[in-house]
């Protein structure tokens, strides 16, 4: 079980800065659990330090960059289907972020957010 080294949680009162340009959106599953919420993103190949988690008002924004770390000098692509570069996902969760405890986890290619709120 690997844990994310860097998780930025920014609280921005009104406006968050929109990343320039539209990006790809990772798929996400949302679980309800006794502690609060568990949110699972399909972010295989993304280093936890390349992921940003932002709380803005009632929105939960997850964004970051997927980089191709496998390709090596001398290789060339024959086919490309995985989307790299920046991604962003905005979710609305009925949770009081103000009093919430947020924790990130990277496991088996998933990026999991634990939201403990009442």
């Amino acid at each position, binding site marked *: 079980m690997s844990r994310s080294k860097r998780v930025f949680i920014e609280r921005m009162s009104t406006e968050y800065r929109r990343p320039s340009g539209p990006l790809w959106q990772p798929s996400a599953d949302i679980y309800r659990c006794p502690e609060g919420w568990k949110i699972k993103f399909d972010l295989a190949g993304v280093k936890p330090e390349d992921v940003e988690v932002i709380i803005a008002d009632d929105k939960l924004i997850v964004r970051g960059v997927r980089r191709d770390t496998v390709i090596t000098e001398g290789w060339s692509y024959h086919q490309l289907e995985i989307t*790299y*570069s920046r991604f962003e996902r905005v979710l609305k969760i009925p949770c009081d972020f103000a009093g919430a405890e947020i924790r990130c986890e990277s496991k088996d290619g998933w990026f999991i957010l634990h939201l403990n709120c009442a």
Partner: protein
Amino acid sequence: MTQNKILELPILPLRNTVIFPSGITPLTVGRSMSLAAAEAALATEEKLLGVVAQREDGETEPTPDKLFDVGTIVVINRMMRSPGAEEVLHLIVQGQDRFRVLEFTQQTPYLKARVEILPEPVREKTPEVEALQRNIQVLIQKALGLLPNVPPEIRNIIVQADDSVRLAYFLGSVLDLELTQEQALLAANSESELLNLMHTYLAREVEVLEIRSKISNQAQEELGKAQRDYILREQMKQIQKELGESEPEQAEAQLMRERIEKADLPEEVRAEADRELKRLERLPAAAPDYHVIRTYLEWILDLPWKKSTEDSLDLNTAQSVLDEDHYDLKDIKQRILEHLAVIKLNPKTKAPILCFVGPPGVGKTSLGQSIARAMGRKFERMSLGGMRDEAELRGHRRTYIGSMPGRIIQALRRADVNNPVMMLDEVDKLGMDFRGDPASALLEILDPAQNFSFRDHYLDLPFDLSKVFFIATANTLSPIPPALRDRMEVIRLSGYTDEEKLHIAKRYLIPRQIKEAGLNEEQLQLTDEAIQAIISKYTREAGVRQLERNVGSVARKIALNVAQGKGEVFTVKPEDLEDYLGHEMFFHEMARQELPPGVATGMAVTEMGGEVLFIEATLLPGSKGLTLTGQLGEVMQESAKAALSYLWSHPNDSGFDCATKFENSGVHVHVPAGATPKDGPSAGVAIVSALASLCSGRPVRSDTAMTGEITLSGLVLPVGGIKGKVLAARRSGMKRVVLPKRNEPDLKDIPEEALRDLEVVLVERIEELLPQTLKPSDDLTRTTPIPSHETIPAGAEVRAQGESRS
């Protein structure tokens, strides 16, 4: 954060395309430079590539200066190699950020540049932007309304878009814009700039769409109407088929075709008929032209293009037919027989064009009928009296509604042969005014050199009139235009003499009227004297119409008597006529027993025949000059002046001293009846005799009538109408007639029985004239006053005929 970040990127030049941020676009990469750039981008961790549109489409290996300086950073989402062809990559890229090229760091094997990422246009909340947003929304709604086939996904994206910058980029990629316009959108740095551009493009697009839809609507509307008509017609056809009615226009056209096949038409006519038939077959029966064409074809088919009757060329039969119908008229009968003889020898000869001129009732029209009968031809008669429209003869062009061929073609259709005897009655009574001049149309019809291809306006095909035997009739020649007169062979029918009328009455009129009244020959017998009395006392005419009417009324009265059983056989004598016809209706000017000095008997001709008239002259002591009364025409007045001048200036010739008398007193010449206009020079000798009598005191011989024109030098010139004048003189009881010497040949026309009772004196000069007309000076018995009853009916023009002197 990527704001104003500087990057170094491989650059892919794009041909004719701009990729906007957020747009997902498939690209096919083939150029080696582009392939190298794509490979380089794929080799990076983030798969980022810069795409920039090139200014010129044609460049295969564009250098940095051929590229725009604002482009888009794209992520390669998918990549595939083409299975067959080497070195072609299929990419699907998604636009991310706009960038501006700072500098190109590498040109081979692919372009590489240091670029500055441009921030997204700043969202503004000014009223201007707000207005632009709303306007764009309105325009989008309009455009969507005009584009029925927009896929619903795109419709949803557009309608639900909440971000106007994204929407603008999306529209930029969807709309059909020029490269420079797309590039301008991409380069816009603020929302207002971007929206302004988009608004302009969109407005233009909507305008184009509106025009396009208007055009297509119009086309559709027209198409719709035509289709509707067509469908209704087809339905009608089906209904008719169901009802067992074959399509009427088809059947009709078929019938026409058969008739055209059968008809023996000249080549040109056949071609025209075929052409019209083709048009007819194409038209539906409801088309207005359909009936026009059908009527036209029927006319063509009904005309006797080649049909003619065979002339009966037996001269003896012809002669007997003509004699049966008409008494005398030797000239005309001769002319007809001549023509028949010519046809016998030369069947291709052209028919003559005759013009019968004569007073009413002399049998011009019936002569035409008997000519037709004698020749075995059909007879067609048309009256031209009062016709004043050329189109009546020659038809109206087919463009006019209700147009028809002219009377000539109509008559030919009635006759159903192309060689009838065609009588053009009353050709002298053709009207002519601003509306038309039918006489000019007749010029063509009656000209043998032209009428073999007579074109009726309606038919517009040449019809051969040269076989038609034209006979025109007229009462007088003078109203006929000279050009028309020239085309016809004029045959004069002068009035009948009383003897001729007697023969006509006995041979034709009386038998006819007896039959009309239902009597037989025995029941009614008119003595010759009675007939002559009817002729002279109850009729005044050159022809025999009144005579026939009077005979008819006698016959009816007899029929009444027979029916009432008052008798079986009636013989009518002159003294009975008063019972049957009433009082005598006409008195001829009869010879006066004695004439006082200054009165002379002249002769004149009218349309009704000859008349005698009296010239009265008297001296007016104490006045000057010459007074002329009695409705004298200019020529007659001049004639009187000449007579006066002659006597005045030739005292020795006349043998009496006129000069003194005329010097001291005026002269009045009067010609009764005062209400009847008179003209012409032929009263000259009568006036000179009257004046000579006046100044000599010697009366003019009361048994002598005279005619002739005089000149100042004393010549007596010939005049016309001798036959009528002499007959009138005889009828009036004259014993002598004085005529110009040069009229001697005319005496041959006068029936011998008329000349038997008359002494004819021919004179050449006035000196010879006066001794013949004045009583000798020793025989100066004073006379009774002038009887004053005048019998020339008022209104009948007495014309001393001078103009037709020959």
